[in-house]
């Protein structure tokens, strides 16, 4: 049971028109794991995430969610599968003309038959998880960037998804908030039993939370390493990966 695969990509090529971003991507995300997508800026991490949440169709290859072939079905079928997903976008992507509370309520209003007081209760709960209860009636323009990230996370949790996608959740946050976010992610994984795919540059956070991953290379446009960030740091011999993983280690040694 613990080794059950929830997401799998087979020889996927991602491209925008004729411009290839990444090719030969194969990966398996195990149920309940935290899977890290790593690599330098512009190597296609967000693009990979985009294809995994159904915003970009791979030009080659297969994508399975559970036992279902994601791209083989109809649009309606994909929408159903998407309800298993919760997505935190890189910039939060809150709907700017709604309050934070309304942002989280919208999916519940659209896809459940729950009554407004029940929805309000669930919205409060989700905001309570991320410590943002006091901002429920504020608009996105009235809160800080870190709060927008957390509100985006609460919105991702709206429909109780079992697969969560986070694009650089801790970018732009202070170290304490960022560490708290890591703990929150672990809590959510353990509490909800969710599977999490995370794009991140924050090595300390990756070593702390991720237990599997893939490393994309911008030059050759292929994945060059698979495995958990900790293992890659300790055992991977590829110079690129080594450099990426050890900058942080040097810092750590320097700090202590």
């Amino acid at each position, binding site marked *: 049971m613990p080794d059950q695969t929830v997401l799998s990509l087979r020889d996927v090529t991602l491209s925008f028109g004729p411009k290839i971003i990444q090719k030969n991507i194969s990966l398996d995300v195990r149920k309940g794991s935290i899977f890290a997508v790593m690599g330098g800026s512009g190597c296609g991490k967000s693009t990979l995430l985009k294809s995994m949440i159904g915003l970009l169709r791979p030009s080659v290859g297969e994508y399975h969610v559970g036992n279902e072939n994601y791209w083989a079905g109809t649009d309606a079928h994909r929408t159903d599968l998407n309800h298993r997903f919760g997505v935190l976008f890189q910039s939060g992507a809150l*709907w*700017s*003309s709604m309050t934070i509370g309304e942002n989280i309520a919208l999916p519940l209003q659209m896809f*459940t*038959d*729950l*009554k407004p007081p*029940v929805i309000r*209760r*669930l919205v*409060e*709960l*989700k905001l*309570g*998880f991320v*410590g943002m*209860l*006091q*901002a*429920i*009636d*504020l*608009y*996105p*323009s009235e809160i800080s960037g870190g709060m927008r990230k957390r509100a985006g996370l609460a919105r991702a*949790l709206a429909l*109780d998804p079992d697969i969560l996608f986070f694009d650089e959740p801790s970018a732009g946050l202070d170290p304490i908030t960022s560490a708290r976010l890591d703990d*929150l992610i672990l*809590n*959510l994984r*353990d*509490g*909800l*039993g969710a599977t999490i795919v995370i794009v991140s540059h924050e090595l300390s956070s990756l070593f702390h939370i991720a237990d599997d991953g893939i490393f994309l290379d911008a030059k050759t446009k292929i994945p060059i390493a698979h495995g958990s960030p900790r293992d890659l740091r300790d055992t991977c011999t590829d110079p690129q990966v080594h450099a990426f993983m050890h900058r942080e280690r040097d810092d750590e040694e320097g700090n202590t």
Partner: protein
Amino acid sequence: MTDNTDTGPRSHAQDNAPQWRLENEQNTLLMVLSGTWQARTGAIPVFPKDGLPKTPDGYLSFQTSDIQAWDTGLIAFLWDLKRVAHNAGISLDMQTLPGPMRQLLELLPEAPDEPVHHKQPHTPLLEAVGGHAIASMTEVGVVSELAALTAKGAVQTILGRSRMRLSDLLANTSDAGPYALLIVGIVNFLIGAILAFVGAVELQKFAAGVYVASLVGIAMVREMAAVMTAIIMAGRTGGAYAARISTMQGNEEIDALNVFGIQPSTYLILPAVLSLIITMPFLYLYGCLIGMLGGFVVSISMLDITAAGYFHQTVTSFGIGQFIFGFVKSIVFGAFIGLTSCRIGLKAGRSAADVGIAATRAVVVGIVGVIAIDAIFAVIADVLGI
């Protein structure tokens, strides 16, 4: 305390509905949970605010073994319980909860902060009217100041001391000018044709068909070409300016300009206003000609006039004074549309809906303003006897 059993709401419909039961034995409470606790069913009970007896130093533990399935719905209930217990001075024995439930419940505050509310102060009618009046006067002041700043930017640009980029002016001008030719042409052609048609029906009765040419000529030159072109530009260019600037506002792009010391009035508004001031007179001329052409086509086909006769009558119908009158009006319209739409964009809020509101407002203010200014011009012309 006596031994008693407090029973939560029970649903007889399904036996796997969420159920809770509170057992009370000598200051030790036991919360027994069973059934399916899923948020989507909408059947999650609310734990009553007075559901726990006030027992300082009391203790509450959980029995969760009969829960069949749960998600955040259960946590919502446990959170209610946590808050009530906090108020009653009872501590929860978290160790009796399974790990996942405990981890989620621990994230939630016992005594949540009050949400920050938007105050919507209620103002009495008279005060509201007065407030709006003052706001409108202030707005006139702000727009005038903006106009002054923009004019200053223009002077500095001429003196070579300013930062308006020529490429911005060119881009704005080509959008406001050449790209607007088609729609301006179509509208003015039809206006000319309609005027000729109406005139022809009436004037024919008096065998004065040839005066259709005068009618169309004077109407286009004095009023129609300038006003119709301005209305088109208010809808087309004014709306676009307001939308663009309010989007920039939402992305903090205006703030970024200000921090660099780049004046939005010089960098954004000057090219926008200038491009309209430059193109409007040309569009006016073009509109006049096309309007007369429209009148000509209708007249030739409906009436018994020659092309030369129509042409001659048109040329003699209006003086250069009327022409200058229309010309000046078109410049004023252009400046007005440019300034107000930019101002509305700068004043807009920061959400996506605000962009739509700003664009709509710019179009409405532009059209109403153009017609109002035209009326003022009519009065002035009457006084001056043009």
